[in-house]
């Protein structure tokens, strides 16, 4: 998005063989295996590890956190208060922002929300917003809504991919080549979403506008309704939100299953004690344009 020069970005990961690592390197991002180095060379610190790993990371980098740092957690289900609690043993007023985004940030059409912690200023929130707005939609919310956001736009792309796969199947069944079917299906959803975002009208109205009396579309919609399409989607958002809350509950209790750790960590990880752990997947941090590092 051109918001930040690559050389101002530092990322760390214990495993340098990940495809994401070489991708980042190609972009010109600074890479290190040391989380501490990342923290030291950053002002805005994104914690992009899996939720069970967050406590380990916080223990590790806690001593290096300074007042200037804005710690942004993207970890699902990890509360601001749990992060602040962990960091407060090292730093009296840690600036914490909790963020929930989604995968389409990759194509700069992400949906991101953030909630600011106790010691994060309005400007800190706005800085994050500026950064994330460059990759899609970004707005501030109250923290208690983040689980619902996860259910809707966090998981949302997966619902869309599923729908697109099925739509393409429908196209193929009716005679379209697969590639064309996928392309058309995706474009249809993209176009519809764009229409909705740019319109003042209710989606129900937009739907009606497509349905000519006795026509093809209304027949198709009847099928969707018969199958409980709407309620399935409502169920999905609800299930994802509830699961997020469960994960949060687990994280709060710091119950980490060995399987979860095993999956995330690779052979290079030592598990002597939590404070010495170098457990992390990857962590990207960004320089702030306001920073004295300029």
């Amino acid at each position, binding site marked *: 998005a051109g918001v930040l020069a690559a050389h101002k970005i530092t990322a760390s990961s214990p495993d340098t063989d990940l495809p994401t690592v070489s991708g980042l390197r190609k972009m010109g991002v600074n890479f290190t295996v040391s989380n501490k180095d990342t923290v030291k060379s950053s002002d805005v610190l994104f914690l992009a590890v899996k939720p069970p790993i967050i406590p380990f990371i916080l223990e590790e980098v806690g001593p290096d956190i300074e007042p200037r740092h804005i710690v942004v957690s993207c970890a699902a289900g990890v509360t601001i208060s749990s992060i602040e609690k962990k960091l407060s043993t090292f730093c009296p007023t840690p600036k914490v922002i909790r963020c929930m985004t989604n995968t389409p940030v990759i194509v700069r059409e992400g949906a991101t929300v953030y909630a600011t912690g106790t010691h994060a200023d309005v400007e800190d929130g706005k800085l994050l917003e500026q950064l994330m707005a460059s990759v899609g939609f970004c707005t501030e919310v109250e923290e208690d809504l983040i689980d619902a956001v996860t259910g809707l736009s966090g998981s949302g792309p997966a619902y869309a991919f599923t729908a697109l796969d099925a739509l393409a199947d429908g196209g193929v069944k009716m005679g379209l080549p697969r590639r064309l079917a996928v392309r058309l299906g995706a474009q249809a959803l993209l176009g519809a979403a764009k229409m909705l975002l740019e319109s003042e009208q*209710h989606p*129900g*109205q937009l739907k009606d506008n497509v349905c000519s009396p006795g026509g093809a579309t209304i027949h198709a919609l*009847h099928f969707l309704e*018969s199958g*409980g399409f709407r309620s399935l989607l*409502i169920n999905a958002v*609800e299930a994802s939100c509830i699961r997020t809350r469960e994960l949060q509950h687990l994280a709060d209790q710091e119950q980490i299953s060995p399987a979860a750790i095993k999956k995330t960590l690779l052979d290079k990880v030592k598990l002597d004690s939590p404070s010495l752990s170098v457990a992390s997947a990857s962590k990207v941090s960004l320089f702030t344009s306001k920073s004295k590092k300029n």
Partner: protein
Amino acid sequence: RRGCGSGARPHAAMEEPELWVGFVGAGRMAGGLVRGLLQAGKVPASNVLASAPSDRNLGAWRELGCRTTHCNLEVMYRSTLVFLATKPHILPGVLEEIRPAVGPQHIVVSLVAGVTIQTLQRLLPPGTKVLRIMPNLPCVVQAGAMVFSRGSNAGDEEAALLQSLLSSCGLCEEVPESYIDIHTGLSGSGVAYVYLFAEALAEGAVKMGMPGTLASRIAAQTLLGAAKMLLETGEHPAKLRGDVCTPGGTTIHALHQLEKGALRATVMDAVEVATKRASDMAKD
């Protein structure tokens, strides 16, 4: 059985504003329409003549100030705008009976379910101005929904007349004849779907502890109020629905239940089935 007085004589073509209205058949639906007509103030009750085989319904008409008879031919002689409001199986016989008295001055409007304009025109003299109307039950309380279509000889004047007379009974719109069966599925029968829904709403409330009579009244008022808002705001129902749903609140929870039950599809099915049945019956 139907004695016709010899005093009956043909009536001259109608002059503005004197309109002579007749009803062949005087049942509930006809009664609803005449009440609306009279309320519209366009036709004095004394200008209305209704015929029926028995006196059972006619008393109520007389109370309104209308004239009554047992002679269908008399209705034709004394009226220009004639509503046919018999039961479907009676109609062919009635048409045969009145046919000799039908002239170019007449406007014949059929309320008879399932009888097409084609059939009506076939059984009446060529050139007769025929219109077909499908009302619904709430016409009796002047909150009806009616659609009408014109036959080959009915023109803008006749359509406009009908519209202006019946708008006081509720919504009255001209449509192509092909919509009439759909109207049956949507609104003719639709009234029954609403009664079913109202009953279910009230039962839900009774289950939760509210007395039945109160629950029924509130259910009815809820439907009335919601419908009124729809009609008066002109907003899309989806928007109005959204307006009622506070995040995480009671309404959205309840709506989820309705969606789980595929209520929308079921209602669509009902309208579809009733429409198809109406057109099947018309073919009989």
